[in-house]
Each structure stands twice: as C-alpha cells, then as structure tokens.
C-alpha cells in the first residue's frame, strides 16, 4: 500500500520561501497571486495493512515538527 503525507507550515507561521516564490511569480508577470505557501509531500510504500494510526505516529515522531507544521495523510 501507499500513503502520501502532506506537510505544511501551520497558518500563522511565516513562510519566507513561499513569500519569495510569490515575489518571483509577480516578477514573471503573473498578477493576482496573493499568497503562496510551500510545503512538502512524502510518499511512503508500506506493508499492506499498515494502519492510519501508525502513519500518524510516524508523522508525530519524525515526518512533521508539530510545533510549526501540520500534516495530512492521504491513503492511496
């Protein structure tokens, strides 16, 4: 089985990289880009039957730093 974990900076945590991307888009002539947030996607190949709770445990212990990041698990 596969799972995909989306890790994003929490709302309210400043994202200087997203802000730089927003600037660059403006520089390329794309108007109206009001906000950019940059995160990461982690794909996991897992043994069949791995529970969502186990994946959540992986997120809490390593994949995300919950002080600054939130995560979403997508089971494929």
């Amino acid at each position, binding site marked *: 089985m596969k799972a995909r974990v989306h890790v994003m900076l929490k709302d309210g945590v*400043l994202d*200087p990289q997203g802000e*730089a991307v927003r600037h660059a888009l403006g520089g390329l002539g794309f108007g109206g880009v009001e906000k950019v947030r940059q995160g990461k996607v982690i794909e996991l190949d897992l043994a069949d039957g791995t529970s969502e709770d186990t994946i959540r445990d992986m997120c809490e*212990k*390593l994949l995300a*730093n919950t*002080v*600054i990041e939130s995560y979403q698990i997508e089971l494929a």
Partner: protein
Amino acid sequence: MRAAVIVFPGSNCDRDLAVAFRDAGCSVDMVWHKDTALPDGVDIVGIPGGFSFGDYLRCGAIAANSPICSEVKAHAERGGYVLGVCNGFQVLTETGLLPGALLRNAGLKYICRAVPLVVGTTNSVYTNGYAVGQEIGIPIAHHDGNYTASDEVVSELTAEDRIAFRYGDNPNGSTGDIAGILSANRRVLGMMPHPERAADENHGGTDGKALFASLTSALAAA
C-alpha cells in the same frame, strides 16, 4: 570536569567545540551518534554545529532521533548540562528539550559573519561570566536560525528570564530577537551563534571564552 561532544554524520564544528571545552579545562570524549551510552561521569554534553544528516527532512530532525539522543535526553532529565550550538540548538528543539523551532532565515540567505549579541540573563552557568545588557561579538553561520515559538512560549521564556542571548541587530527574523534560550532548570542552553568560534585570539575575538570559563568553574565547584 568531563565533557562529551556528540558527532553526527555531517557535524563540522565538533572538533572546535572540543577544543573550547578542553581549553577551559575539561577532558573531552567524542561520542558517535550510534553509541547507546554516554561515558561515565559526563558533566556536560555538547551538541555541535554542522549539517547533521545533510539537513534532510528538517535541520536536526534525524539527529534528534539517533540512538545517543535518548541518552542525552535522559542526561538532561537527570539535571545534567547540555550545550547545543547552531545545528545543536536545532537538535535540542527537535528533541523537545527546548521549546520552539528554527525556521529558514527571513531573508532566505545563509549568513556567515560575526554579529552583536546582547546578554539577556546572568542566571546560568553559561552566562554568569557576562553582565546583563553586555554586548558581545560572536559569529553566526546558518541558513535556518529564525527562532519561532508561540506567544505563550515567548512570554514564558521572558517571564522566567530564560532568554540567554538576543541579537543586537536581528539578522534572521527571529521572534523577539532571540539568539539563545535556557531550559526551565537553566542547565540546557541552545544558541545559534558559535561561542567556540570566538574563544581564541586567533579567531579574531574571544567574547565566547567567558561562556566556557564560567561553565567549567561552576562544574568544578559542584
């Protein structure tokens, strides 16, 4: 006094930190991250700067989960002293020994230069060789030194006098100009600037020397 300096793959300030401890009168053991015990009788654990595990995932995240780190945590929980510099500070926040997190610098650039720091408290073995409000020059060298924490955490750090150092001229966007913080028992210090790079005449500055000197004299007296 015995110091242990933890070495991760990608650490690059481990030997500098060892020299600073040794010059201040400590015997120093280098401890590999896969080791499962600290040497007997260690007083202070140093977590050095560098790029542990290539900064993969998040700076310090993988190092914080290496075998030796549960020992470092146990040492801190027993009331042992821990000094984390730069990547070491990032590791300490990732282990939860210190609150908050270090984000990418606000200006997105890697910054490598000496900066002015203002001493925030003298109530710790690391800072009692300075004066409150004293300005010292210590080099920084980081890409992810932008300290962030919730308002509650920052007010707690402030109320408990746990902000060891503030930037005189905030280079990286850190909340409250915070450059270094202490744990609640004041025995764990994490800081982005490198005191071990300002501890010898040949470094071009010696303002970091007092940190190691006051630490070792406190340990000697204990």
